[in-house]
């Protein structure tokens, strides 16, 4: 059974805060939920499906469902695969709607890592207790930054990718961020600015890394019938794919990501190819994350990502594949250290033709949103959705 066209995104809201000193994570969830429902023209008691992750306070969705006063829930899902979870949730929501398990699904994300002064990328941390790989990795100072840096180092070794090519990804994001009044880094940067910024973990410089921000976002997914009764432009979920990539029992290869599986699954269900995509939201925890995922999704051949991203090819109005037109995680925000939500939100804006006029892709009707969660250099989840304006 295909779920192509069985669900529509009718509500999307991104919290404008980037530093939330005077509120709580639960309240941020409430504000993004309210924002997305307002955007859809729905109210709290219309929601009968609720999706969040382990990053939400409490036991799965339980404590947030209580805080938000969601009393009509028939379907609950707290799938947690790190930053790509919210891309997965869109796919799972469509599945649940297609099976009649719920009609109106709310997906929320919120967090305050910046207010909490969390060393997101440079301090060793575990994902929990009793994690079997921890005794073999934490002692070595495994961090988010060095786990991605090792992928970049190997990619450079095998394919000749350069720091200047990676820098172009940040340059493109900054060209978009200049038009976003909420972006944390709205200043346009050059390739030289990136490669001359301090080294964090060779070969990734400070400007190869995403920002650390507070905030969040929410989405509303519903059935075709309900979507057509609402007043917002119709954004159909055409395809969804997900995967995990393991360390592969010691036979690990760091040159590719789980997008080699989640991407084709989504394209097959949608019945389209990478050439058809007019706008792409690509998870950008680091510049190398974007480059490897673009290759794996089929936007260029493996090893040719460096050439593909260079010379402004990702800049809206300039290049062939406009990406992350909100400025992405690299320049705009990365709420709760999880970028999948904002990837879907900006794709929805593009399809509604509500992106900033300076970055709006003219006549955008087909978009992709893709995320990675966990660590590219050890084990990670991967999720892709393909969305179409009807």
């Amino acid at each position: 059974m295909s779920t192509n066209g069985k669900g529509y995104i009718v509500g999307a809201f991104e919290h404008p805060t980037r530093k939330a000193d005077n509120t709580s994570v639960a309240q941020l969830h409430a504000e993004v939920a309210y924002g997305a429902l307002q955007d859809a023209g729905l109210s709290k008691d219309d929601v009968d499906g609720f999706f969040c992750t382990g990053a939400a306070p409490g036991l799965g969705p339980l404590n947030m469902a209580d805080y938000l006063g969601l009393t009509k829930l028939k379907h609950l899902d707290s799938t947690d695969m790190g930053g790509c979870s919210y891309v997965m949730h869109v796919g799972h929501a469509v599945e649940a709607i297609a099976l009649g398990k719920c009609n109106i699904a709310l997906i929320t994300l919120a967090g305050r890592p910046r207010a909490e002064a969390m060393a997101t990328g440079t301090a060793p941390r575990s994902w929990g207790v009793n994690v079997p790989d921890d005794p073999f990795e934490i002692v070595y100072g495994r961090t988010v930054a060095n786990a991605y840096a090792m992928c970049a180092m190997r990619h450079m070794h095998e394919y000749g990718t350069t720091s200047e090519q990676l820098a172009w990804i940040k340059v493109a994001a900054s060209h978009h961020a200049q038009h976003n009044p909420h972006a944390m880094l709205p200043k346009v940067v050059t390739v030289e600015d990136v490669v001359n910024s301090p080294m964090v973990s060779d070969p990734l410089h400070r400007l190869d890394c995403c920002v650390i921000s507070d905030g969040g976002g929410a989405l509303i997914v519903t059935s075709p019938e309900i979507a057509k009764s609402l007043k917002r432009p119709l954004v159909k979920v055409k395809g969804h794919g997900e995967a995990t990539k393991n360390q592969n029992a010691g036979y690990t290869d760091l040159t590719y990501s789980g997008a080699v599986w989640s991407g084709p699954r989504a394209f097959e269900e949608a019945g389209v190819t990478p050439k058809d995509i007019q706008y792409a939201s690509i998870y950008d925890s680091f510049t190398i994350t974007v480059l490897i995922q673009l290759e794996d999704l089929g936007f260029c051949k493996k090893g040719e990502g460096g050439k593909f991203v260079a010379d402004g090819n990702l800049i809206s109005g300039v290049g062939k594949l406009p990406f992350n037109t909100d400025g992405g995680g690299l320049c705009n925000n990365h709420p709760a250290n999880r970028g999948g939500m904002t990837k879907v939100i900006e794709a929805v804006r593009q399809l509604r033709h509500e992106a900033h006029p300076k970055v709006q892709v003219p006549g955008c009707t087909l978009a992709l949103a893709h995320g990675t969660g966990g660590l590219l250099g050890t084990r990670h989840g991967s999720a892709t959705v393909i969305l179409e304006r009807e």
Partner: protein
Amino acid sequence: MATMAFNRALPEIKTDPTNQPFFDGARAGKLLIGKCNDTGKFFWYPRGCSPFTLSNNIELVEAKGTGSIYTFTVMRTKEPYCVAYVELDEGIRVFTNIVDCDLDSLKIGQKVKLVFKPTQGDGPPAFMFTPA
């Protein structure tokens, strides 16, 4: 410019009954790796089942302790350190640190050999590598 590896304080390794034999090996100066007796293949990291067949028909065998750098990075923190995957001569890639060397001189493909470094508390030492 040279950046000498810093002998940073290593956190205590928390073991569990499943991986205890591996860490007992480390205390005896041995790097043990998993071997699946259903398939004859080595695996990493050590665990209580074969990641190829899920059976418990496995054993730990001693690695030679030599290999080459598959990839690495130098964390440019106040006390710089090198995180790497070393491909053992047995063919598996292990997550580790490269120590006791100039971190700016390291190259992918470089030959390395096994060393052990003490961790804090009463825990087992951590296996690492240094240029051969």
